[in-house]
């Protein structure tokens, strides 16, 4: 059998019934390729069924299980014990919820609240370009798609928004801006003016401090900062009268 690790997880807890917060230590043994979500399940099974944590697909496609591990926002379904030990050079891990929305219980946050930022940028096509004369799909050459296809891979896990050094308050944050930018680069979108207004609004791109923390933590390895930089350079055009 492969190597086993002796781990300590220091988990942030919150009980909404009594409005009490504390940090609880859990000690457990785990094999090298267990994931952090497996560790939480192990704690539920063997030590404490009351610990609440969120996940869904558990293979990095839905973005539900984002948490801060030793301060770094990650998807906990993708973090293997072995890699965590290597990355942080320790077997003790501080586990905290993401900071983008209020905590409901323990590691579960009100993700619907965080999503309100995405709703502001209207992730759909606001106004569709005239259809192709042949009536079927719009034609998009691969080289046009290539310019923004990376940004379409975003799963709204909010790791970037948590890592961002700019304020959380009244700021769209990197992933919401990315959703706006995708449609600005999408040749099918006609309502660019409205999109630019959102991007350059008081809660938009001017709040970015160019730390590139978004790119650094993105679990999908999207170069978020690159797309935001294009916006800062005015590559998507200007709003009338600004």
């Amino acid at each position, binding site marked *: 059998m*492969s190597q086993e690790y002796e781990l300590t997880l220091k988990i942030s807890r919150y009980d909404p019934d009594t409005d009490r917060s504390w940090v609880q230590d859990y000690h457990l043994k785990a094999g090298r390729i267990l994931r952090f979500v497996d560790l939480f399940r192990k704690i539920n099974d063997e030590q404490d069924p009351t610990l609440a944590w969120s996940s869904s697909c558990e*293979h*990095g496609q839905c973005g539900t299980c984002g948490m801060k591990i030793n301060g770094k926002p990650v998807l906990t379904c993708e973090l293997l014990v072995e890699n965590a030990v290597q990355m942080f050079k320790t077997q003790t891990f501080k586990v905290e919820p993401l900071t983008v929305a209020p905590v409901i219980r323990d590691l579960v946050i009100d993700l619907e609240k965080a999503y309100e930022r995405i709703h502001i940028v209207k992730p*759909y096509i606001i106004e569709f370009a005239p259809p192709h004369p042949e009536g079927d799909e719009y034609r998009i050459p691969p080289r046009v798609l290539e310019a923004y296809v990376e940004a*379409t891979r975003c799963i709204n896990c909010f790791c970037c928004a948590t890592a961002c050094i700019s304020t959380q308050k009244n700021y769209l944050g990197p992933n919401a801006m990315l959703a706006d930018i995708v449609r600005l680069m999408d040749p099918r979108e006609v309502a660019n003016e409205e999109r630019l207004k959102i991007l350059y609004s008081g809660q938009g791109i001017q709040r970015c401090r160019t730390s590139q923390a978004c790119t650094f933590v993105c679990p999908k390895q999207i170069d978020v900062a690159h797309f935001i930089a294009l916006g800062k350079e005015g590559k998507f055009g200007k709003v009338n009268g600004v």
Partner: protein
Amino acid sequence: MGKQLRIDSVLRPEVLIIGAGGAGLRCAAEICERRPGTRIIAVTKVYSPQKSHTSTAQGGMAAVDPKDPVDRVIYHMFDTWKGSDCSADQNIIKKVCETGWEQVVWLERHGMHFSRTEAGRIAKRPFGGHMLNFGEVKAFRACYEADRTGKGIMDTVWAESLRHGVVFLGQSVATELLFSHGRCVGAIVFVVPSGKFVAILAQATVMATGGKTRMYQVSTNCRQNTGDGLALILQAGLPVMDLEAVQFHPTGIVGPGILASEALRGEGGVLLNKDGERFMERYAPTAKDLAPRDLVSRCIMTEIREGRGCIHPDHNMPHVWLDLRHLPKYVHRTKIQEVTSFFRKFVGVDPETELCPVVPTAHYQMGGAPTNEFGEVQKSPEEIVPGLFACGEFAAASLHGHNRLGTNSLLELITMGKVVGERVVSYLADAEVPGDVPEEAGQHVFSQFSNCLERKGHQRYARIRDRLRVLMMEKVGVFRSEKPLTEAIDELRELKRMASRMELSSKSLVMNQELLQFWELDHLLDISMVIAQSALARKESRGAHYREDYPERKPEFDFHTLAYMTEFGKVDFAKRPIDMSIYKARGKNYKKFGMIERKY
């Protein structure tokens, strides 16, 4: 302990959608486009609709482009019929295959980021079981967005629902369907974060809660897919259909069972046994590695049983290899980037230079809540339940019969989601607004929840769950026969007894995941019981349902299994005939749609 459970509030939308995944929200978008301003509440068990399991679908969506020089809708219809092992319904096959392309274009015109050809058109790739000229050569029929097609669909229908002002209720579960004079008038919904019960009364209720394979040890399904929707159907005294037909995807990543898309083989990946032999050539000389899923899964399990598999050192599990090393670098980097990253992340293997360990994994339910061709839920083959609709993986119309072809599920979500949307709009035209909350509303769910809250005993949830998952894998899995199935049924009874002696650590109703797990476990056990009994009753092999003691398909089983269970373990069966309208129409090629032999 007498915790007072009560309905906290009443909401009155026009339409209630239970399950806000691909099918549910395609339906919502259709309703809003046809009838702007319709008030819709969509309930989802996950944290936001974008997190739905639809998002994890990878490979593509089959649809025949009318401009395709060689492909024809009739070939797609034939492949689906043949793939189903002659138990899909031909009226549904016709409807879905004929409207597929139109729905692909709908998605594109609403912003989905399809992969493109050099000319800028939607790109297509081959997929298992999809062929030209009635089974001769592989067809390029699957429209895709790299290896995240499901995400593309989910993002699109979710965004469209947002545009139209659909109200979402996240982290919430429907716990009881409400009826008034035989008509469905909504549901009671438990909002997990607040611990409150809400009665949602609506003219029309659409169920689209997806799949349910979390009762299997190795499964591609997400944590939330525990069969709650089907359990609700059974509780209401309604039937479920063809539950014995569980699809095992041949290539799950060994360990967690994560799906490694058929697109990997579509792009040229091949399966190897421990001796490095391309064993699929032996079993399916024409289709080889792209034979349908049930067949490939059985071949892999046979290789493993006959000692030609390997054992994974970390997971201590048998597996075979998927070889992707010979694929061009650009394919690795652009077309299958997401999926190959799973091998790197979860088993530490680099698919560009190393072999990938794979094993069959429980993936999809071909069966579900029986509906007619408009997605109206059936009480019996002759009678529908007014006001209750279903679509997506949750429903069985049935497009897939006893085996589904890859890329036909996403196709079903969008085509049948639209069909149900249309039907709901015409139903709303003269549907009565529900009256007061029915008097008996809540009785069922409150007794279920009080039971969970008040149970005493020392049985552990994890032990029951783990035993269930191993049991289903071993005895109700890829290979089945009478003795293990009978043993499984007995053991399920024992597990149900054990489950009645689990005690909660916390009695809080607010965001209590343990309480939710108790509630889910009951559903997993209920549905497992129906799967096992349905599998025992079908003494033949058909599609994904393979009986070693009855290895052939038999004409006396040319029907759909309808199963009712209002008391645990007591399953009553009925039959629904298979629709053979294409065959009966006696058009050109009608003979291809008879009870044909299934060879690849």
